[in-house]
């Protein structure tokens, strides 16, 4: 989780990723950020997030992203 927060902070500074639950809905992460994020996650966690998992509910908060990573890792 810390690793993930670090990746996110590299993307945009000054956002409280621990609590924010509207990363997509409020337009904090746009499509370019999402792809960069997924590339970083692939490097850090060795998990490939497929395009079909790019849904607002999977990326709206750091928690949701982490849950997605865990889910994909456990298939």
């Amino acid at each position, binding site marked *: 989780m810390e690793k993930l927060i670090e990746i996110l902070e590299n993307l*945009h*500074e*000054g956002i409280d990723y621990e609590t924010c639950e509207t990363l997509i809905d409020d*337009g904090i992460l*746009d*499509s*370019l950020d*999402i*792809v*960069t994020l*997924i*590339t*970083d996650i*692939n490097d850090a966690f060795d998990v*490939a*997030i*497929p*395009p*079909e998992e*790019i*849904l607002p509910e999977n990326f709206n908060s750091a928690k949701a992203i982490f849950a997605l990573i865990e889910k994909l890792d456990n*298939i």
Partner: protein
Amino acid sequence: MNFASFEFLAFLAVLTLVYFLVPKKVQWIVLLLGSVVFYAFAGFVSFFFLLFAIVISYITVQILGKRIESLKKYLEETKTTLTKDERKAYRAKHKNTSLVILCIGIFVMTLSLVYVKYLSSMIGFKITERGISFGKYALEIMGISYYTFISIGYMIDVYRERAAVERNFFRHALFVSFFPQLAMGPISRYADTGEQLKATHSFDAKEAWCGFLRILWGFFKKLVVADAIAPAIGFIVSQKLGGIYFILLCLFYSIRIYGDFTGGIDIVLGSAQILGIKLPENFNRPFSSKSTAEYWNRWHMTMGNWFTNYIFYPLSLTKTMQKLSKWGRAKLGTGVGKRLPVYTATIITWLATGLWHGIAWNFVVWGLLNGVVILISQELNPLYEKFRARFPKLWNSAPYQSFMAVRTFLLMSLIRVFDCYCDVPLTFDRFFSTFYTFNIGEIFKGGLLELNVSLTQYIVIAVGIVIMTAVSRLSAEKPLREVLWGKPILGNAIMAILCIAILVFGSYGLGFDASAFIYGGTFN
């Protein structure tokens, strides 16, 4: 059938009447028949291409659906007998085969689109009284871009297990061909409309009234503003006027495309709303955007989403792209490497968006410019963030926010102007003319009135723009029509005024030339 016509309104009125009178169970059949009738107006060839798209997407979706079921069943059965890795491998292999089937489906659909839009002008055909004759007959197939995109989106969503499989061929046909959305969008996804089109709907006075008001509003934007300014655009382009006229062209064209497109979508969404169906919104106050990226999240949203979901993401997340990224990081440094896939995918996506609009250099340039502008602002983002952190007060002040909106508006107007000339070098030439032709004075000396638009028409257009801006602002939180529903007297008064304004001030019909009515006048 043109949406901005009495025929369409009459068609909609009859359809609505039948729709709410028949037993609810068969409402969807009424919609399907309505779509068929709507298509019948476009001719046999159009109907054939639609049917083709329906059949291809139906077959693809059915096969994909069956395969997903059998995979699930297999994985369920082998839960205890196979190891996790074995099952994972089986799943991957199975998915690959599905992917091949999906790709074949997409390929066939795309082929028919490419044929109609690009190839038919070279090897087309037309049906005459004497049979089919082949030759350079560019086909005009109503709505093919839209239903092809809707079908491809649906096939991909089924493959991704993000949409249910519609087993009934006719219901599937309705989802693909639902008539309001085929002329200009929105490009709906199964998640948006699939279930709604199956559900039953009771007549709801509020929905009907709001839908009707929205249709009127669409007519107003299109007929009173957009079509009224069109002659000036045609004149400036045909006369290749430069200097201040180029700037006017950018502004006029933005006004026109906004009124025409958002107005058209209002008619579409309003029509569906009367029938109790909520189509996805296509615009969210686009001219209030403060950056190009934001603009594309607010303008023609369903198209933007389509390209993001079905081209940009899959493309940037392919193994090749990820490899490219790794290679870039190793050879060119982390910064560049990380950007490589995103940037490549952005440019390719925008190129595809451009080509979707038409196969011509002006669309290529238009697409690339959009991509480049978005990437440049992405690169400048850290700078902006610093600026923002340093001067938060200034950043949040109304003038600066307006400045950003105006800047985006002007930039987008400039990019959009490539549609007008359909000629890239000429567009650049006219653009540069603004730097050496200083003819601002001309427009105050009556130049404006020589653009085939009269002073009274300019006044109407200006008032129209003011009203449009006000309505857009007032609708930021909640659509104004819904607020008006709560105030019936005001609401109905506005409805009446809109009707009369459209009928009197609208640019429709044959125009009026007093001299044409003087018989003798034609001889002297």
